[in-house]
């Protein structure tokens, strides 16, 4: 067996790490006491969560009248937040599954955090579905169960029911994919555990993994099939979410471009959120050698691509609204840009179409500060995109007598804040108790993508095939 050290690719792991270094560096935050920064961040997240949970409870107790909805704008922040969070939940599976199928090795350092983000983001999205129902204790009505009213079933022809199937399947498969990916690393933590309690807990969750060659062969095969399943799943979920709108007759919603446009937008916002989380993780847990500028740059390239697709979709929508000759459609789009919600439309255009184009500059693409700021801007822009699609399309309908405006109340805002408390509480718990970088996968790329070269390479050019290499820390 031999390894090729590519002459053209820049290393994905820096600092001359050995296999033991990988275990040590990544297990450190799981095994050590919580840091001061983590404790402060966790306290803030829990306080926000508790405040938000009280507001969500009040929303359910009083009814949806506490929101700023009216008869015309019947969906507003609830569905905006839902679609936004589902979109954020897409990058995890994309990084894990699609990039695995494409053999993109840079995914290994960021896939774990991205998958965790997916799980938590989908839970946040689901919380808005429950809130939006008003009576969450009846949520099971959305499931295909025979009920007490006779042989009445859910309407399988409705995209809202497709949503139930799509999102619950997506959540389940993502959770399984994430958990299976954790097994080898949980076993590593188990075998290093000093206390009986952690040995027992990590032992139970690692399910008795011992890393035999046979297990690994099956494991890799299973991962590949799960990736193959998850890839179309990502596309199906947001396609179906887009159909919630596209199958209606509301001007501005009833468009065939929605499925690809929503999928691109979801990946766009998802990658932006991954960037934010990963940039924080690499500093707080000192993982700069594993999450390198190469990783950041690769994700920025995906953001640039998907942001450009979203930009083209905005222009296509406008063009088709004019070209179709449907006056209601034409009005809906002119109204978006120049009507009472013009500020939301232009915030969306600025944040999603104009500013991400700065990533064409290599210096900006490789700058941590620029990446963080632009990713936050993309997330803001994508929230406005959903707001523009939902609220501006609803506030003007076919009857001018029913035209209305939507004004968010304290509970609209607080319920959104709740989701941040929920998300960050879960994410901080994850980052403390589980390895945030996939140790086993990073170890597989150490030889082919690290700064460390095999001894026998010293004196020969990079890229040359070598057999039986051994490590030497002094070789650069």
């Amino acid at each position: 067996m031999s390894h090729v050290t590519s002459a053209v690719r820049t290393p994905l792991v820096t600092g001359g790490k050995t296999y033991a270094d990988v275990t040590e560096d990544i297990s450190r935050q799981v095994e050590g006491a919580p840091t001061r920064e983590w404790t402060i961040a966790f306290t803030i997240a829990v306080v926000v969560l508790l405040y938000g949970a009280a507001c969500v409870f009040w929303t359910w107790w009083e009814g949806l009248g506490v929101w700023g909805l009216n008869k015309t704008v019947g969906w507003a922040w609830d569905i905006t937040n839902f679609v936004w969070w589902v979109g954020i939940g897409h990058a995890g599976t994309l990084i894990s599954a699609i990039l695995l199928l494409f053999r993109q090795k840079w995914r290994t350092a960021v896939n774990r955090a991205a998958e965790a983000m997916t799980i938590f983001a989908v839970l946040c999205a689901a919380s808005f579905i429950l809130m939006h129902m008003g009576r969450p204790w009846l949520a099971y009505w959305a499931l295909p169960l025979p009920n007490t009213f006779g042989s009445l079933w859910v309407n399988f022809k409705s995209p809202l029911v497709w949503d139930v199937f799509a999102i619950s399947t997506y959540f389940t498969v993502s959770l399984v994919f994430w958990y299976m990916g954790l097994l080898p690393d949980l076993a590593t933590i188990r075998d290093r555990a000093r206390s009986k309690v952690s040995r027992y807990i990590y032992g139970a969750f690692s399910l008795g993994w011992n890393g035999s060659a046979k297990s690994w062969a099956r494991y890799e095969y299973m991962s590949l099939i799960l990736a193959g399943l998850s890839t179309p799943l990502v596309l199906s979920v947001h396609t179906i979410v887009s159909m919630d709108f596209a199958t209606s007759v509301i001007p501005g919603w009833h468009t065939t471009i929605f499925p690809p446009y929503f999928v691109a937008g979801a990946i766009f916002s998802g990658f932006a959120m991954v960037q934010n989380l990963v940039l924080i993780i690499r500093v707080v847990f000192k993982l700069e050698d594993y999450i390198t500028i190469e990783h950041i740059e690769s994700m920025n390239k995906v953001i640039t691509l998907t942001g450009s697709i979203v930009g083209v979709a905005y222009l296509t929508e406008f063009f088709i609204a004019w070209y179709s000759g449907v006056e209601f459609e034409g009005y809906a789009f002119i109204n978006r840009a120049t009507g009472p919600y013009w500020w939301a439309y232009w915030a969306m255009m600025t944040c999603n179409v104009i500013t991400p184009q700065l990533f064409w500059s290599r210096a900006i693409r490789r700058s941590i500060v620029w990446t963080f700021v632009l990713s936050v801007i993309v997330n803001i822009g994508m929230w406005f995109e959903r707001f523009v699609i939902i609220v501006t399309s609803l506030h003007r309908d076919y009857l001018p007598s029913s035209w209305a405006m939507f004004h968010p109340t304290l509970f609209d805002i607080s319920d959104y804040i709740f989701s941040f408390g929920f998300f960050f509480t879960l994410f901080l718990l994850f980052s403390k108790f589980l390895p945030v970088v996939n140790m086993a996968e990073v170890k597989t790329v150490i030889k082919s993508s690290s700064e460390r070269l095999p001894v026998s390479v010293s004196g020969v050019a990079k890229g040359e095939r070598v057999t039986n290499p051994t490590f030497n820390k002094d070789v650069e």
Partner: protein
Amino acid sequence: MSDVNGNGKFLVGIYDDDDVVLKAVKDVKEAGVRIHEVYTPFPIHGLDIALGHPRTRLGIAAFLFGLSGTLSALALTYYTEGFDWPMIVGGKDSYSPIIYVPIFFELTVLFCALGMVGTFLVSNGLGPTVKPLMYDLRTTDNKFAMAIDLSKNNIVESDIEQILKRSGAAEVNVKQF
């Protein structure tokens, strides 16, 4: 589960490098030693082939579970909308398989994923109460272990130890289960 086979005495060769252990498998086999299993901290491509493990049939399980998902979705939608409570909504036929493609797709994926993962756990003997047989605790960190079941080899223990060392083992330990 392949590696839980009762009480026995094992010689465990510990290797520092994945390339070395992969070559060692071939060398040790050529020397006539029957290898019980190799334990590694990460997957090594080609190791299962070198050891002579049969190709996994998880793909077949995945296909069958996926098929059962499709058939379940077909049965569910046909029973509810085609038979039990036919309804025409939005001018769509009460039962036309095209309308239910998203349901078919989602249940196919769901059954396939859960069924395959379940099969994986069962076939590897994994579960929350399973106590793993660890030949060396460092194999989940940075070492590679080759386990030789002495009861399944007719070669003298000291000879096997020599073969393991010659193949590149940094140390050879005895493990009794």
